């Protein structure tokens, strides 16, 4: 797995549309681009072009927050929260140092 800079994660999370995409993926993993666009348009009134959503997904993928799963001819998008765990624990003071599994 590629090393992801924390900077990429912060950049990815800085955009409200990308946060919305993550919100929707929490509800259900494995969405197609079509489903993500539909959810953004109807639930959040974000009528973005498919190309624009595709570009947002590419940023999320570069930050490893979204993983693309190719299954035959289909392309599905899964949420990956591992980079968030690293951020969340970064400044936490703990009595015992935590080790990542």
């Amino acid at each position, binding site marked *: 797995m590629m090393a992801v800079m924390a900077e990429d994660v912060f950049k990815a999370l800085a955009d409200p549309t990308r946060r919305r995409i993550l919100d929707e993926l929490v509800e*259900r993993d494995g969405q*197609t*681009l*079509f*489903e993500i666009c539909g*959810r953004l348009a109807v639930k959040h009134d974000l009528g973005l072009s498919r190309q624009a959503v595709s570009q947002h997904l590419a940023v999320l993928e570069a930050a490893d927050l979204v993983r693309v799963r190719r299954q035959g*001819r289909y392309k599905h998008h899964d949420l990956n929260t591992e980079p968030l765990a690293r951020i969340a624990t970064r400044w936490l003071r703990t009595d015992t140092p935590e080790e990542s599994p």
Partner: protein
Amino acid sequence: MRIRLTSVFVDDQAKALHFYTEVLGFVKKHDVPVGEQDRWLTVVSPEEPDGAELLLEPAGHPAARTYRDAMVEDGIPLVQFAVDDVRAEYERLRGLGVHFTQEPLELGPVTTAVLDDTCGNLVQILHAQDPAS
């Protein structure tokens, strides 16, 4: 002006006829040989035998594959059918081995799901939520 016919490109007309009739439940309307292998092959809904026809058109043109592959990759359906209850159809069709790329999803005024027609296309099924509810 009326919409009487629309079409989808299919990889294999015989296979498509099977899927659209035996699995989805449409009925054959026209089946006329055209040229050596191709057929003018249409289906209609048994609920509307004189309604709009769907032409199952051979996907012989090289551009058809590129176009349909790109649509399938992004999960975009090329045709849409109205059903009474998306979730019930989803259960029925899954029981028949149909693959869905989008499970039933309630989106504002409609519920939709997207399935693979096994002939190169994605199909959306849809019902409108009861306006009274």
